């Protein structure tokens, strides 16, 4: 808070006294905020005016960028010690990198408010015992989108059963998905599936498959644990699909937009993807598969565990904020039931238990929306966040080139995982993690 804010407080106080009105809770306080930008988030930000009116405070949005850009900005702020702003957008995948930036919200937010959130989300937002953010209705976990008509062709179903020895149905396991992807593939016109092939994205997919196969990415002390049977099985899955030509040749360069647009182009049979795409895939003006989209819970790995790498957006309050109470009040407001109902009405998944029930009720008469929600609700029930280490992103930067090397045939699965494990081990030791 600045002199300007103090001045504004005095003026507000004077006006309040003159009119005899009681002063609002945070009259004259100015909250500087750095928020994630994008059209889809604006509806929520429009509610900020309500909070300002209610509390007498003013929100000054000093930065609006995507999370990757915000991440760089936060790091620069920490380096330059310019962390006096108050509220920042946060993400479960990035949060662990800023151990000193954000304050513990559990001291500022009533416990009954915290209890309204899905417990798994609150657990993932708690790092080193500190509740560093309150989750908003932007919860992400991936379910399986598929083209429905590929399961309606009796001739193909018979050919599949003859070749693989079991009936063709929407896959419930990743092995079944692999069989079907290879079966449906007809490159370069049609592919069985696709996967994000670089950066944190491929490591996230690898991570959830390792877990689904009964393994772990890291041990409890954060030493690498993925060079295991479960890890090898997971990486082999990626390799087999690539070698069989069941995924586009350029998949190792693909990120989320490429994948979403690929499925919408009608050239992909099965696509593990985020909830935010559900509306787009079924929109006839944007997608060639509109009206033909089915959604199922994420398949299970060899250990019978469903994949469920999840993440969510949230809001945090900085440690150096001058008025943490006001900032926490804003964060609580932006994540309360009304805010989450508003955000989730456009498609994203909530992180409050009551809002899950609300949107399920709302979607009763829309079969597609009900199918989407049921699939994601089922997947979310066993979802898990990224390992809570501040070296997560750095570790993914060491792991993903090795995964790519195996997929492209530069290294064997064993060599790639051994090299990745060595690199991560060196990183953790160098940083004094163990």
């Amino acid at each position: 808070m600045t002199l300007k804010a103090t001045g504004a407080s005095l003026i507000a106080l004077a006006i309040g006294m003159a009119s005899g009105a009681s002063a609002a809770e945070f009259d004259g306080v100015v909250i500087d905020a750095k928020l994630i930008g994008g059209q889809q988030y604006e509806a929520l930000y429009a509610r900020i005016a309500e909070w300002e009116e209610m509390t007498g405070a003013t929100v000054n949005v000093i930065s609006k960028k995507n999370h990757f850009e915000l991440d760089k900005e936060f790091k620069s702020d920490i380096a330059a010690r310019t962390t006096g702003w108050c509220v920042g957008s946060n993400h479960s995948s990035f949060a662990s990198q800023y151990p000193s930036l954000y304050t513990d919200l559990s001291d500022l937010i009533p416990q009954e408010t915290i209890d309204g959130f899905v417990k798994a989300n609150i657990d993932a937002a708690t790092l080193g015992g500190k509740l560093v953010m309150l989750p908003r209705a932007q919860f992400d976990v991936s379910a399986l989108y598929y083209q429905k008509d590929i399961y309606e062709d009796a001739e193909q179903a018979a050919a599949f059963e003859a070749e693989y020895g079991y009936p063709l149905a929407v896959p419930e396991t990743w092995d079944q998905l692999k069989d079907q992807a290879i079966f449906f593939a007809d490159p370069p016109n049609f592919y069985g599936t696709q996967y994000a092939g670089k950066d944190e994205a491929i490591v996230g997919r690898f991570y959830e498959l390792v877990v689904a196969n009964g393994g772990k990415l890291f041990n409890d002390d954060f030493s690498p644990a993925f060079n295991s049977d479960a890890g090898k099985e997971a990486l082999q899955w990626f390799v087999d699909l690539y070698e069989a030509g069941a995924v586009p040749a350029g998949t190792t360069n693909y990120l989320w937009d490429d994948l979403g647009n690929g499925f919408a182009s009608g050239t992909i049979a099965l696509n593990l993807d985020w909830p935010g795409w559900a509306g787009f895939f079924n929109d006839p003006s944007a997608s060639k598969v509109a009206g033909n989209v089915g959604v199922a819970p994420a398949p299970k790995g060899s250990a019978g565990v469903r994949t469920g790498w999840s993440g969510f957006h949230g809001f945090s309050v900085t440690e150096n904020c001058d008025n943490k109470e006001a900032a926490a009040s804003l964060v609580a407001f932006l994540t309360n039931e009304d805010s989450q109902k508003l955000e989730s009405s456009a498609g994203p998944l909530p992180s409050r238990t009551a809002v899950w029930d609300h949107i399920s009720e709302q979607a009763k008469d829309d079969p597609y929306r009900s199918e989407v929600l049921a699939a994601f609700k089922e997947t979310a029930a066993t979802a898990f966040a990224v390992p809570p280490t501040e070296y997560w992103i750095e570790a993914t930067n060491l792991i993903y080139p090795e995964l790519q090397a195996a997929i492209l045939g530069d290294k064997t699965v064993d060599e790639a995982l051994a090299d990745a494990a060595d690199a991560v081990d060196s990183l953790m030791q160098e940083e004094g993690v163990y």
Partner: protein
Amino acid sequence: MKSLKLPPWLVLLLPAIIILAAVVLIPLVLSLYSSFTAYKLTRPDSLYRWIGTFNYEKAIGDAKFWAAFGRTVLLLTVALNLEMLFGLGLALMVSKVTRGQRALRTMMMFPMMFSPILVGFQFKFIFNDNVGLVNNALQSLGITDQAIPWLVDGNLAMFSIIFAEVWTATSVFAILILAGLYAIPKDPLEAAKVDGCTAWQSFRYVTLPFLMPFIYIAMAIRSLDVARAYDIVQIMTNGGPARRTELLWTLIGRTGYVDARMGYANAMGYISIFLAIFFTVFFFRKLTAARAELGMGV
């Protein structure tokens, strides 16, 4: 007490010295200092953790760093030579045009006007394996029925990056060489014609030696550019897949800004500067020799 009186020459130079120190020297010294520390962007206190030459030893012992170094030298060598050859050809052709030469010269400079980021996106789309222009054209013409992974295959991905670099910078060579062509005196060329030289002999023994100083200046400028290649590669492949197109500055950029290891990134940056220094010294020596050959002095 006698007040300190600076000599007039120093007073006059002081503004320049202060500005140079502020914009060049201080950042350089700070980055050099930080390369000897464990500086992480997310931990400001680490700027004061002196670790001696650890970062340099780590970089020197890192095979990935040297692979990126080698790839950068390869890109530099191939891109520079191709740009020189195409630029020379383009300049020779444009110099022969008698009408509309000014318009041609302006058109020739169009690629230089694009931001490298845009060039990166443009070629990322052109070489996309699924919806890209090149694959669609090849498939429509019946040349292939495969989706050629231009940005995935090690050789093809380097080719695609070199193609983008050459497209964007050939005109630098063409413009400089064209300036050289205009500066060539007519007498030696006419003398060669009178002596019965063929067109090739006139070019090889008269035109080219006159052009060499211009070529070396273009080479020196572009070698500094390519040794710092980042934007186009970052957009097209981000150094991947599987580090197949990893160059020095994509590696250093990721280490510094994504991994937040600024100390280590700066150490790699300082080692990389030797590459730029080497090529600059090399081309300036060549330039001096070429000028001496023409009797232009050193």
